[in-house]
């Protein structure tokens, strides 16, 4: 066992998850492949969405994978950072919008 939780080499072993549950693993990767194909959104557009989501869910493997993929597909550094800001704004907004709940509660119990 390694003494840390994340290892960059493990990204290449992602496919191994099917080892313990082949049917579900195979279905997942088939679905994953289908999702990222050109559709009503292009594969390039999907890559940028994936990059933003990767930051929102703070997955280091996904950030590595989709930083490369989005850059390779032609997005500029500025476009990629704007996508990260979109993730940040949504995450920040998700925190702040709960402030309304806090305000509601405080207003209810205060004089």
């Amino acid at each position, binding site marked *: 066992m390694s003494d840390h939780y994340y290892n960059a080499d493990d990204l290449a072993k992602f496919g191994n998850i099917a080892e313990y549950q082949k049917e579900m693993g195979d279905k997942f990767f088939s679905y994953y492949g289908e999702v990222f194909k*050109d559709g009503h959104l*292009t*594969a*390039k557009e999907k890559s940028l969405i994936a990059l933003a989501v990767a930051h929102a869910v703070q997955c280091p493997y996904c950030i590595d994978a989709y930083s*490369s993929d989005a*850059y*390779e*597909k*032609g997005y*500029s550094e500025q476009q990629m950072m704007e996508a990260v800001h979109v993730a940040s704004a949504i995450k920040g907004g998700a925190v702040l919008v709960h402030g309304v709940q806090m305000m509601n509660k405080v207003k209810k119990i205060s004089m």
Partner: protein
Amino acid sequence: MIKSLKVLNNPLSNADNQLAILEDKKLHSHASFKAKLVASDLYPLRANAVEILQINVGKMCNQVCKHCHVDAGPDRKEIMTMETMQLCLAVLAHSSIKIVDLTGGAPEMNPNFRWFVTEIKKLNKHIIVRCNLTIILANKKYHDLPTFFKQHDIEVVSSLPSFTKDRTDRQRGDGVFEDSIKALQMLNAVGYGVSEDNLQLNLVYNPAGAFLPPSQQALEIEFKDELFKNYGISFNNLFAITNMPISRYLDYLLSTGNYDSYMEKLVNAFNPAAIKNLMCRNTISVSWDGFLYDCDFNQMLELPVSPSNSRHLSDFNLNDLTNREIVIKQHCYGCTAGAGSSCGGEVAN
């Protein structure tokens, strides 16, 4: 402007040193290209025709691109002489070769370039010129190149790694994007790239970094949209080419710590379906001094064609060259990764 590896006396300007790195098992433990071919029942790799003569008329260039496999630049003085061009013409006159692909360096900088083109055209061959675009703006004497190309019905193939200034200039040098756009507009103005039927203007994309090209089809759509929307530029096809891990690009990979991961990408993306249409199977590459190679990359690695009796224009033996065994090394992974790569773009479709 940066200097060539050769002028800098960089060890990587030596072909043997490049091959030593590519074959060094301590640097990476990937399967040999030969083993991959054997496993796919594709060894030995053989040519099946000689339809294209790709002639490198010299290493002199007005640009110094970071990925250049020729290590070309203004400081390179190797130029094909008229005598060697005459040997090319003799070979063309006595063979069924249909296409002549002129490359460099900037082929237009060879002082006998226009004479050579005119003589090839008299032999009724289709001519491709790999024009770097900026040469058209580099000096007044080149401003009429679009008209010259048109008069000789030349297919123009030009590198443009991105439809943005930033990425293009990072790979090809400051100011290259702006001059490339002006040159493309000049080519459009004389009729290049505006019709499917004649005056073909094709662009070449190659990655500006340590990664493989994305889908050629998706790139072409995007390049066409962006170049037309922003600059009113049209072109016919976009060819996506993989950067070969040799010469200046190998230097870039090593100096940035990307070499191993890039080779891993190439090896993991090996696609047996790309083998059928590899350019080495129907092309002979000619160096500025008249020697013969399987491709421009083998030329730069000084790996001559296998038939020892036909390694120079003066000994050109079409029969022996047609069925020759292709000389392969680890760099060949560059042409078989993903959708494959050639001077005409993807090959596995």
